[in-house]
């Protein structure tokens, strides 16, 4: 893949040369090597203000701006309508426009299945996967159960059943709840809230008995000692070892598998351009995100949000997306969330 490094201050000259040469007709037919945005670039957020995607967009905006990674300004546009469907349709309609990208997560698989949205991630151009979000089983700190075994035992005997709060319906949190039921044999009542933040405060207030929030959604109430982290739904523990809550680091949370609860689930955070964009335009963004990954803003953000670092592009990313999509299709069919089947 042609990949011209574009350090601050040098792209302009490269483009100027590219432009002059193409004006002269010398390179007619071959794309200019160092394409760069001609106008402001829009970061499309498929969620509401203040949510995890919005925070990531603000971090990207700050990282690009402070480190001078791009000459054109970056704007964040919130398209969280219809649980993010608005953003997906907006990107689909923007085919050929290299001046916007969306921060996508598992909604690219779940929305078409659950809400019959006429969308396929192949309508867009994958750029890179920048991180993975993990999920943790949390309970209220005032409750007597302190680990997976005692939680499961309490849930099995509970009447009325335990309530689990989560974001939205027929999405990642809901899928995890269904698998908790299958693996533990306990019954849960799932309450779909509008955001992870709401699910967090509802757990602290005792209105639900557990949630499966991402680390970032619960970190503040965890630090305040209001919730307890029971286990993480992944095959390895979270890597960060510095103390976050009173006496615990993210790394101290056991995996669910260690505790005999065999559930693994992580969620991608990926960047997509609209469909039908030129390869050199994709190359520019791949390069941009490579550079962003080196900035202190990005590193700081990853640790603070306890995200799992990752960097997949090109064929590697596409094959991951295909596998991940198949997995979601299977999970959602098993859970009975596919529209028209329940």
């Amino acid at each position: 893949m042609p990949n011209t490094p574009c350090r601050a201050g040098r792209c302009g000259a490269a483009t100027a040369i590219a432009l002059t040469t193409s004006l002269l007709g010398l390179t007619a037919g071959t794309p200019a090597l160092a394409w760069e945005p001609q106008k402001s670039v829009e970061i499309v957020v498929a969620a509401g203000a203040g949510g995890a995607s919005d925070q990531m967009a603000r971090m990207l905006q700050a990282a690009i701006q402070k480190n001078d990674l791009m000459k054109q300004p970056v704007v964040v546009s919130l398209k969280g309508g219809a649980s993010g469907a608005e953003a997906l349709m907006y990107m689909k309609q923007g085919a050929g426009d290299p001046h916007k990208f969306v921060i996508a997560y598992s909604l690219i698989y779940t929305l078409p299945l659950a809400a019959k949205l006429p969308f396929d991630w192949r309508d867009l151009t994958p750029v890179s996967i920048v991180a993975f979000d993990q999920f943790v089983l949390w309970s209220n700190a005032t409750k007597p159960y302190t680990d997976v075994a005692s939680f499961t035992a309490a849930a099995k005997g509970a009447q009325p059943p335990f309530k689990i709060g989560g974001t939205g319906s027929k999405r990642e949190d809901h899928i995890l709840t269904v698998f908790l039921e299958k693996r533990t044999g306990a019954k849960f009542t799932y309450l779909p809230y509008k955001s992870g933040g709401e699910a967090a405060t509802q757990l602290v207030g005792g209105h639900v008995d557990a949630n499966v929030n991402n680390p970032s959604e619960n970190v503040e109430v965890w630090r305040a000692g209001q919730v307890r982290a029971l286990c993480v739904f992944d095959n390895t523990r979270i890597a960060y070892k510095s103390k976050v809550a009173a006496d615990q680091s993210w790394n101290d949370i056991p995996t669910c598998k260690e505790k005999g609860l065999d559930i693994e689930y992580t969620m991608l955070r990926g960047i997509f351009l609209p469909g039908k964009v030129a390869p050199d335009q994709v190359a520019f963004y791949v390069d941009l995100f490579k550079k962003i990954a080196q900035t202190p803003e990005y590193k700081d953000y990853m640790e603070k949000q306890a995200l799992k670092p990752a960097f997949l592009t090109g064929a590697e990313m596409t094959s991951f997306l295909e596998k991940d999509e198949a997995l979601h299709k299977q999970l959602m069919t098993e859970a009975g969330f596919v529209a028209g089947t329940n």
Partner: protein
Amino acid sequence: MEALGLLLQGFQVLLTVDKLLLMMLGLTLGVFVGVLPGLGGPNGVAILLPLTFSMDPTSAIVMLSCIYWGALFGGAITSILFNIPGEAWSVATTFDGYPMAQKGQAAEALTAAFTSSFVGSLAAVLLITFVAPSVAGFALRFGPPEFFAVYLLTFCSFVGLGREARHKIVISMTLGLLLTGIGMDTVSGQLRMTFGFTDLLRGINFLVAVIGLFGISEILLTMEERLALRGHAARISLKVVFRTWASLPRYWATLARSAVIGCWLGVTPGGAIAASFMGYNLAKRFARDKTGFGKGRIDGVLAPETAAHAAGTAALLPMLALGIPGSGTAAILLGGLMVWGLNPGPLMFVEHKEFVWGTIASMYLGNVVGLVLVLSTVPLFAAVLRVPFAAIAPMIIVSCAIGAYAIQNAMFDVWLMLGFGVLGYVFKKLDIPLAPLTLALVLGNRAEDAFRLSMIGSGGDLRVFWSNGLVGTLTTLALLLLFWPAITGLVSRAGRLVRADA
């Protein structure tokens, strides 16, 4: 008094030349942003957020929150002069503010609005200063049933306390509830009433509807009736400001009641809107002389403005202490806090004392400076009404269209706004009140979600709405308000019977 010491420290952080300059700049920008319908606080803050990335967090939040205060003040200006509410909670201000402007009392109405917002904010800031930790905990007691009970209370106070024919209130409210059903349903994860149109995915935006219902329909009516804005130039001078101030002590009960409602509802998310409507309705109910509401009474402006601003300010408390944004603007401020490396949450008041108390001190200063700033512009803005209608109407329509477009960058919203303009015109001709429709558009979705979550949680048992003291009181109060006319009717009839017996 630990709080006082910390607050003084906060003032010390703020009282530097550059911070005061930022404050003035923020307020001025905010007033301009607020005057343009649809642009409003959230968009203004979102546009200017990147400017603050290079500042230290305290300067940044001072500037952004001043834009917020400025936009709040500015929103009242368009509500009163042109019947176009800039924010959801300015809707109730139009009920009496606009008629006052038409009677030639624009300056009085503006002064009343600005002053009462100041009073409301001040009450809420005092609350934040002295009882922050315990009040923040109060918000945690709100689960789905409690939220639903608050919304029910607001809806019921409309039906029970409204002056208009009840069936017309119910018609208007029901239409609003139906319209909020469009889009994604969070509880089932399904799309509803979108009929395959991509534009309908995001649902009907409240501000788009309001700009059409109030702004455009008013222009249509004016065109039909007289081709002139009725507000002819009153004598406009700073004297009006002082005269209005002199009359305010008479309304102390209204101000106090609205401030209490506002502070109380402010700590529950979305409370500011409910507070402004409830403040208005209760002022109407408790007024000794009930005539003239909706036709330009000054306490009809004071009540909603005080409540809305008390609630809007109090809403910053759950944002700082719990990370729950109480309004759209608060949500964007929340995003900003994260960029500056501050995570709102229970530990915020412990770990970032300087920032928190700097912010609280900026609420005091920002409101005082803001009040002086906007009051000095009252004569200027009131003079706008002297411009001939033929010149100003196209400008209003254009700014409405820009506003409707800017909310979600969608052309579809402009057509929707015009459609709502026609609907508003028809409603006014039929004497159907618009307020219940707008209220339903704002709170309908949240009320529906809260109700269904309560039902899922309780397994369909309605007794959940009386399951604890808090929710039980709210629900009972709501039902009492709903049947208020019937109850007072029964009581007076019983009284007459007793007297006849005696």
